[in-house]
């Protein structure tokens, strides 16, 4: 029964949030909150999506930037080739991200722990190199994007992107929450603790790992898809920047990976701190702050914010390093 009530509260919260976001785009004149808010929402989507594989399954993906960049360039290529609308770009990015996730999932057959993480870094470098040499999307020099006219009811493209990213973040959260409460979540938790024991207890470990990789990959690429429209520009170095990997990982770990709310809290905390610092001091300080906070949390609160809030989750959050 509590599960049912939780669901009502959750979906009510989602509805209120989306209505609030939509209302904000109609009322607030200044574009800056939407510029900043977009980035925070993007990091919520990234951290939550990362956590499906890195937190629930314990496979630390260092290639968030690979999936993100693939999302960016799927959208860019599609837009340049066909002028496809944003929704189609995002859907295509999700499909490509899911395919890439399937490939990464196959890596888990042979690699675990640090070796898996290193392989995902290598993957990002390979794809970035490929894009750098892909003339059609501008190669290493990057490409300028001319935004199409904005759609009603929005009066600016950034406001629309803000709303779109809010939907992507909510989608990521809903899926993460569903997985966490389902049989799949229990299976992932079991294989994170002990893959052989899980397998011998009936858990189809390969299938679950593939599912986690594909969902996580699809969500990360989808969150990356609007980035070129947001910046009106895309280049391989920015799109495949390792900062996306570090941020997603740090936000998820700082928030705590045992519950879907953890990465959300981590992304809000770190994302808004970063936005604040970027305006007040400099954007270079961001990375420093990220590093310091990660160190503080690893030492002081290894189970993240939710470990501090809810002792019950201390038990569950035992992700492999």
């Amino acid at each position: 029964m509590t599960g049912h009530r939780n669901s009502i509260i959750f979906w009510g919260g989602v509805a209120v949030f989306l209505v609030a976001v939509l209302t904000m785009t109609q009322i607030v004149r200044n574009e800056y909150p939407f510029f900043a808010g977009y980035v925070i929402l993007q990091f919520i989507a990234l951290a939550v999506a990362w956590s499906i594989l890195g937190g629930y399954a314990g496979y630390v993906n260092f290639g968030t930037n690979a999936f993100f960049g693939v999302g960016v360039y799927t959208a860019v290529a599609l837009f340049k080739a066909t002028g496809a609308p944003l929704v189609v770009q995002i859907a295509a990015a999700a499909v490509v991200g899911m395919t890439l996730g399937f490939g990464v999932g196959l890596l888990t057959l042979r690699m675990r722990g640090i070796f898996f993480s290193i392989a995902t870094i290598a993957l990002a470098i390979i794809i970035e190199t490929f894009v750098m040499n892909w003339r059609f999307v501008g190669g290493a020099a990057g490409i300028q994007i001319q935004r199409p006219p904005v759609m009603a009811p929005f009066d600016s493209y950034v406001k629309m992107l803000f709303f779109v990213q809010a939907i992507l973040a909510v989608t990521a959260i809903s899926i993460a929450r569903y997985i966490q409460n389902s049989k799949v979540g229990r299976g992932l938790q079991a294989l994170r603790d002990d893959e052989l024991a899980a397998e011998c207890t009936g858990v189809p470990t390969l299938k679950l790992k593939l599912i986690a990789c594909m969902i996580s990959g699809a969500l990360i690429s989808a969150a990356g898809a609007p980035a070129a429209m947001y910046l009106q520009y895309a280049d391989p170095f920015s799109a495949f920047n390792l900062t996306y990997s570090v941020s997603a990982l740090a936000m998820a770990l700082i928030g705590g990976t045992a519950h879907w709310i953890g990465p959300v809290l981590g992304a809000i905390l770190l994302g808004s701190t970063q936005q604040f610092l970027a305006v007040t001091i400099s954007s270079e300080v961001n990375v420093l702050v990220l590093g310091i906070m990660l160190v503080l949390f690893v030492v002081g609160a290894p189970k993240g914010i939710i470990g501090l809030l809810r002792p019950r989750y201390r038990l569950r959050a035992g992700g492999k390093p």
Partner: protein
Amino acid sequence: MTTPAATEAPLLQVGAITKTFGGFTALDNISVDIRQGERFGLIGPNGSGKTTLINCISGALRPQAGSVIFRGEDITLLPPHLRARRGIARSFQIPRPFKSMTVLENLMVGLDFAATGSRQPEEEAAMSILTRMGLAAKADAPSNTLSQVELRKMELARAMAVRPKLLISDEAMAGLSSSEVDEVLDLLISLGEEDITIIMIEHIMQAVMRFSERVMCLDAGKIIALGAPDEVMANKRVQEAYLGT
């Protein structure tokens, strides 16, 4: 389900299994049939291939040659989780709990993924297994807080949650005191009375003697004796393998 045909056909047929690791032959052409409902003891000195054999039966390893037939079906190439669903469960020599879960949740994994066609609500089913195993009081305890004997019992309880037809116990009594050994042994014997076939690997001879209807002794990957417990113990080669004379 106890039709005469079902009781006559062996539950498990291990057919000429050979498993090598590099140049080392861990199992050399092993064949054995396990009957439905049998309590089967598997003994042998360290490194004789006992755990390798049960890894081949449970699917953790694939043999280079030979076959494993379970209830008339060739399962030689099936991954472990599909064997678990068909009713093969095991415990591990060194306990491998899902350490981020409570004891109850550990059992829920098996009930969720392997146990098929159970009418009972899962949590109730898990509790009734825990009660049998004397772990009911620990249901909500994190599994990483259990004592050694509790861990051993939880391993067996988790295996039971798979609703096995064949339960393989890999040294479930290692490192336990003699009263704890009796406790676990009584549990295994009572499970055997429920038409669960049990293969028990054990070094503690009194336990093997008391438990087993048949005993097989491996040495260097070969079967050196197979038969009634006292016959096997009296076998000269078995004594040599153990005492080294």
